[in-house]
């Protein structure tokens, strides 16, 4: 390259860099606290509409859309119709960052809602934090997300590490002659599942239940048979599976049935909460007795929940039992943001962040929401749900009035 060429190239690179900086500088002011009359308020969201989390991502889209429909029907947010700007991240932590940068710098959205999963929420929150935006999210409650120390991140759902606590306490509280003697723990190395296991294990072990198997498998595993066979060979009476999706749970269930292994209790951290997306894959008979921790289910009686479920069934079909908990998590994100916008009388993200950190108690279809300084919802209550026949019911905390008796021991496969 000639000397002149080098100068031209350097000048070109400098121009692009300056232009990029200028764009970022102007875009940081894109979060306008006022919106012209008649203009919609735009909310930028990156969702996993393909890839590993596509099932959850689609349910989240439905939840966000239901909330927007509800708000728009009642006159909008501070008089502005809500417009969702949703882009797909294909379940990629890299793409999610690009998406939020685009949504803020190019699309100039007014607010942002979170993506699905802890894996994506953390990089997404970091990206929007650079622009001073708040990120209210419904599925990113892993401890690693909050350990990042971001002040703009708020999770409306329960902190995931506590999810299995009611289940573990139920096992520990069983009379000694009925309490299972052994347990197997197997989990994917995911930020959502792994933190739940040690908390549950500490409670269950303290009750004298012996750990017969403990294993972590990589998230990219596609052939679960050898792992499931190893669990079956341990012959533990309880299986605690750290899973994030239906295929993982389905694979373990199928392998257990093929190995003629029928644990008395089988709980999976994710998958059985997916309504018909779960029961249609594994079959209603095999679903019977399967347990899952969560903060919400289709028959929940929290304020607004039944109205949301009715709206869901009207728009997307199905029954209350088929509504995924993801829908409620996404809907709750909208509700909390709505309350913050109304309280701060505008769309100024810095004011919204300050308000959400103020210790105020808010309400959502999942129940109360009160954020600590890390953005975790301290007011959330963990429940355990169980498939009983074709119904998905709440079974603990046992002291809760809405809890039904646990189907214990779990029926044998296919019966």
């Amino acid at each position, binding site marked *: 390259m000639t000397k002149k060429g080098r100068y031209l190239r350097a000048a070109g690179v400098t121009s692009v860099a300056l232009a990029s900086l200028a764009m970022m500088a102007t875009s940081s002011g894109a979060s306008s606290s006022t919106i012209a009359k008649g203009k919609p308020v735009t909310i930028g969201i990156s969702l996993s509409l*393909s890839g*590993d989390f596509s099932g959850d991502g689609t349910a989240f889209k439905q939840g966000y859309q239901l909330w927007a429909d509800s708000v728009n029907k009642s006159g909008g947010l501070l008089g502005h119709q809500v417009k969702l700007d949703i882009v797909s991240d294909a379940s990629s932590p890299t793409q999610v960052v690009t998406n939020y940068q685009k949504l803020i710098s190019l699309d100039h959205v007014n607010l942002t809602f979170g993506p699905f999963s802890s894996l994506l929420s953390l990089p997404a929150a970091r990206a929007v934090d650079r622009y001073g935006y708040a990120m209210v999210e419904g599925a990113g409650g892993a401890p690693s997300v909050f350990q990042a120390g971001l002040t703009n991140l708020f999770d409306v759902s329960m902190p995931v590490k506590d999810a299995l606590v009611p289940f573990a306490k139920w096992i520990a509280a069983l009379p000694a002659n009925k309490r299972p003697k052994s347990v197997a723990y197997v989990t994917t190395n995911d930020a959502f599942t792994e933190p739940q296991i040690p908390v549950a294990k500490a409670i269950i072990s303290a009750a004298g239940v012996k750990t017969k198997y403990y294993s972590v498998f990589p998230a990219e595993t*596609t052939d679960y*048979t050898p792992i499931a066979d190893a669990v079956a060979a341990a012959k533990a009476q309880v299986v605690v599976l750290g899973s994030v999706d*239906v295929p993982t749970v389905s694979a373990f269930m199928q392998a257990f*049935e*093929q190995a003629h292994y029928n644990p008395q209790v089988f709980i999976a951290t994710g998958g059985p909460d997916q309504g018909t997306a779960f029961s249609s*894959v594994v079959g209603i008979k095999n679903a019977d007795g399967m347990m899952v921790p969560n903060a919400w289910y289709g028959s929940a009686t929290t304020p607004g929940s039944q109205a949301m479920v009715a709206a869901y069934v009207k728009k997307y079909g199905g029954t209350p039992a088929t509504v995924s908990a993801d829908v409620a998590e996404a809907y709750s994100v909208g509700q909390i943001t709505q309350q913050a916008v109304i309280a701060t009388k505008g769309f100024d993200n810095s004011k919204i962040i300050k308000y959400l950190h103020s210790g105020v108690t808010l309400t959502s279809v999942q129940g109360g929401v009160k954020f600590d300084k890390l953005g975790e919802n301290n007011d959330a209550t963990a429940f355990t749900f169980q498939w009983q026949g074709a119904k998905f019911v709440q079974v603990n905390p046992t002291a809760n009035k809405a809890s039904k008796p646990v189907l214990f021991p779990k029926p044998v496969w296919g019966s």
Partner: protein
Amino acid sequence: MLDGVLTGSVYALMATGLTLIFGVMNIINIAQGILVILGAYLSYTLSVHFGIDLFVGLIITIPTLFVVGVVVERLFMARLKGPERTSMSILVTYAISLIIEGSLNMIYSINVVQLKAWYVDKSFPIFGVYLPYIYLFGFILAVVLLTSLYIMLYRTRFGASIRASLADQVAAALVGINVARVSTICFGLGIAVTAAGGMVYGATNAFNASTSYDLISRLLTIIVLGGMGSLGGALLAAILMVTLGDVVAVVWSPIWSSPTFFFVLVIVLSLRPQGLFGKQSARVA
């Protein structure tokens, strides 16, 4: 171990199509993963909506995917010419993959499904362990199809044409072989076997269109290890990949399953860059 051999044979079936297409046409078919899933969805449709048994349904799905393969080859692959043909094929087949993935998502939704039949969840005792019927039936199916493919390649006149095209396309054309026709049929055959692989995969795993990404990475690994263009290599590599992964998962830890296999892959490729059974001369630059 037994599971690994049985499952490996099904992966071999899926990878065979990929390696056959590369061997004859120098095309790297990135769409092979989604075509396996398409095969699984076709079996699902026949089973759920028409009550046709999964194995009986192959009588319909295998010819259907053969036709799909022929159409794709005529519409897209046959138009790829010149020295950049192989690299261009990656882009074109990736585009085809995205189109099929989007179409499947629209038709079947993104919710996962799994193929059902009496033999999918059932097993029988043998040597102190339970062997799932579906693995045994899948293995038998793979053996029958791979043997048929082998006989076709090594015991028929058309097979000789394929092998001649595989060795040297120019020389094959000079002796009167219609290389274009051979390529079209090979592509069709390569896609047709995904119907069988997809059916067994769909009976042993819950799947949706996105599952294809996991599949294609495994299939590409198999044919690289086995030697691109080698049918025997694909079979051995598939069994090695699954068996090694399973043994490490049980004996050591599932965490070390993939790293151990890829360590073996790197060692093999360091010693034999053409893979276990690959022939450098079979490749066309």
